């Protein structure tokens, strides 16, 4: 925790932090002061802690064996404590080992040099899950930075995945051409899905929240329609299952065939860098931010607000489509009804967790991927439903979105948490 945001040398604090006091603490003392201050790292860490705490309460309240142990509270208090402790402990241990790896298995692999595949599988799965989530989170974060709330991640992801799968199963060039083509198709598919709300908002003033949500359902049904008709449906299939893409369209694995982690990770990193560059350096991104901050000022300054509105949603939709392409060509290889699952909505919480900064979104997607992948392992081994992970995620974002709450619950000092632009209400 200490090396993420804290710098030990007692350099002058940046101008943006609270005013320097005459007796500013130094050295380790300063570190402890930092620990009790409401800064981004502390608030996020405490939010994660709170999420896990609420999750533990939920486990205690719903698992039959724990409830039984609590009924013995007065006769056998020791049993109550130990059963509670072990049940919650087991669940969270599985959450950890299922997402990052079992320390014993890793230790064994280091000692003997064998079994690396097994040791690294959880980590590989986490990275695999994180890459589309990260790209979709960037899509939402880009929107938030410009005052545009794109809830259409799910629909755009499906559009991108559909376009990518079409290119994936329809043509069969060598991988060096096929993979980039799929990437382009995924982006284009999502961009088309993003263009619709952008165009409608710019031309008619229809609010993007409504249009994108409705489009989610339209695309979900469009997907079912496509999967029950040619050319998308798998031949000789009665169910809504898509055709499998050619091997040349699959994203190559990074560490051999046993670990599923693939170059989607690099695509995600490239997207994060690209969005970061766009928002910090590009003229286009500057225009976006001005439009987000103040439309009238943007108009006066000669920025084409309509064009910016459409472009933001096109790029945002394209990124969400790319996320669909990464999961399709990276791990699933064929479409199914309801494709993408909860990624389309999880990406909103990821963007919030990352405070709409690309680096934050990368970290946030890793955390959420770990919770999901570990949650699946937990479900398999302890029977506690995976949905616990989504409750924990929601609690975390509750606290991240309201730093004031963390401040009061944990008695932190001062407020040093910038929130940046998020949504702009209903007014166009």
């Amino acid at each position, binding site marked *: 925790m200490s090396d993420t945001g804290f710098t030990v040398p007692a350099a002058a604090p940046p101008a943006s932090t609270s005013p320097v006091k005459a007796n500013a603490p130094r050295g380790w003392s300063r570190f402890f002061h930092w620990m009790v201050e409401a800064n981004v790292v502390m608030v996020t860490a405490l939010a994660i802690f709170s999420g896990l705490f609420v999750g533990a309460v939920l486990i205690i309240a719903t698992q039959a064996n724990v409830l039984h142990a609590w009924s013995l509270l007065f006769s056998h208090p020791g049993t109550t404590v130990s059963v509670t402790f072990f049940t919650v402990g087991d669940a969270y241990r599985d959450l950890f080992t299922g997402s990052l790896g079992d320390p014993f298995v890793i230790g064994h692999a280091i000692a003997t040099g064998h079994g690396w595949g097994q040791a690294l599988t959880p980590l590989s799965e986490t990275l695999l899950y994180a890459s589309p989530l990260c790209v979709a989170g960037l899509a939402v974060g880009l929107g938030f930075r410009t005052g545009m709330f794109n809830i259409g991640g799910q629909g755009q992801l499906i559009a991108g995945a559909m376009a990518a799968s079409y290119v994936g199963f329809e043509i069969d060039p060598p991988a060096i051409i096929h993979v980039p083509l799929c990437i382009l198709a995924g982006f284009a598919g999502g961009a088309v899905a993003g263009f619709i709300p952008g165009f409608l908002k710019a031309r008619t003033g229809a609010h993007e929240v409504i249009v994108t*949500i409705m489009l989610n359902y339209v695309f979900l049904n469009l997907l079912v329609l496509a999967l029950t008709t040619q050319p998308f449906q798998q031949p000789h299939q009665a169910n809504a299952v898509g055709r499998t893409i050619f091997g040349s369209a699959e994203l190559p694995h990074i560490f051999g065939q046993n670990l599923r982690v693939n170059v989607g990770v690099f695509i995600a990193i490239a997207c994060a860098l690209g969005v970061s560059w766009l928002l910090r350096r590009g003229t286009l991104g500057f225009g976006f931010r001005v439009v987000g901050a103040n439309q009238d000022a943007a108009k006066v300054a000669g920025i084409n607000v309509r064009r910016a509105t459409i472009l933001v949603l096109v790029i945002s939709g394209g990124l969400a489509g790319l996320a669909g392409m990464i999961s399709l060509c990276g791990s699933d290889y064929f479409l199914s009804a309801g494709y993408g699952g909860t990624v389309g909505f999880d990406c909103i919480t990821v963007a919030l967790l990352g405070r709409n900064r690309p680096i934050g979104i990368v970290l946030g997607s890793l955390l959420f991927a770990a919770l999901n992948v570990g949650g699946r392992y937990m479900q398999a081994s302890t029977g506690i439903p995976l*949905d616990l992970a989504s*409750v924990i995620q929601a609690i975390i974002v509750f606290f991240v*979105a309201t730093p004031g709450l963390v401040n009061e619950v944990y008695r932190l000092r001062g407020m040093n948490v910038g929130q940046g632009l998020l949504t702009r209400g209903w007014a166009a």
Partner: protein
Amino acid sequence: MTAVAILGGKPAVASEARIVSAGRRRGMGIFLVLASVLMLLTFGLGVSAGAETTFRLTSPFSTAWYLAPLHFPVRETSVVMAVVCAALGLLLIVRRRTRGTFVIFSLGVVLFLWSFLAWAARNNLLDLAGMIGATLISAIPIIFGSMSGVMCERSGVINVAIEGQFLMGAFIAEIIASASGDLWLGLACGALAGGLLGGLLAFLSLRYSADQIIVGIVINAFALGLTNYLTDTLLVPYQNTLNSGPTFSPIAIPLLDKIPIIGPDVFDQNIFVYLAIVLLVVLTTGLFRTRWGLRLRAVGEHPEAAETVGIHVLTVRYRNVIWGGVIAGIGGAAFTIGSTGEFSSDMTAGLGFVALAAMIFGRWRPYGGLLAALLFGFANSLQATLSVLNVPINPNILVMAPYLITIAVVSGLVGRVRPPANDGKPYRPQ
């Protein structure tokens, strides 16, 4: 809004005419003309000369006074209607006045739908009365949801959490009604669950000035995750005791249920329909005719002014957001104890967001929300009817219809909306 107006006992009735730009009016006219071409070519001339259709006005076993079914030739009717529709469209294009634009447009759309239904049910039978009933049934949760939105947003808090409040209300109402066997207790607890989520929204957004849309979205995620989790841990293992409860049975109102066509559809329904009607009347009068409503609107439009004349802004907002949650919770209960008596995961399927759209389409007015909800409900029942009639349209496209219509309405008819001036903005007491 001046202080006098806020203090005064006689609030002004909001009667702003909807402003329709010339371009949009012309657009509507062009739409009607194009629709009439479709009517003429497909529903009219495209039908063989002898084809007839029957619209049933009294469902079998219905208690209403009997009305003979309408029996008419499809081709001739559609041609006449197409001509009228085209005339209405041309009228919209040439005339200068704004007033009445929506009436003319709605008339044209009704003609189009009539002719479309006649075409879809050619040489067949269409249960018009049943369709109206289905429209109302699927509109009920949306009506509650949009009322909830009106309550919250008129006082200046955006409630995106309607979906979550629906889910929670549906879940809690079902589980309580099922376990206790007491429907009213279930309804009360469902309402309470919605109110609690409303309280959470109010607490986070009023006390800590958190972004209201964000908090709403997270409440939705939270409610979805929690109900899914509890469905897996509680409802699946104890399906018989916790998830198969009683449902409200219809109550016929004497005499009123004898009205032809709409009688049984409106006045022989379960408690949720009556609750919705009462709520609609109370909220419309309350908002625009009482001191309570004026204060509520003042807080949403100009909280500083309201504070100056001694209204406690945050208290008003807290109260309304919590009541809004309660209303949405009741709407959620309609999903379970009001219809099937069984909860399934994510059963609200985005209808909370549709309710939000209905509220915006209804321009933050209760009856506007009602109309929008009925429109959506109609799209839903249309889809059900068409799939029964074996219309040569893929069922997966028909399922999209309600959502596509919502998009079309939001972008074509509503356009830029004017929400309450301080909707979504945090307020710090001076």
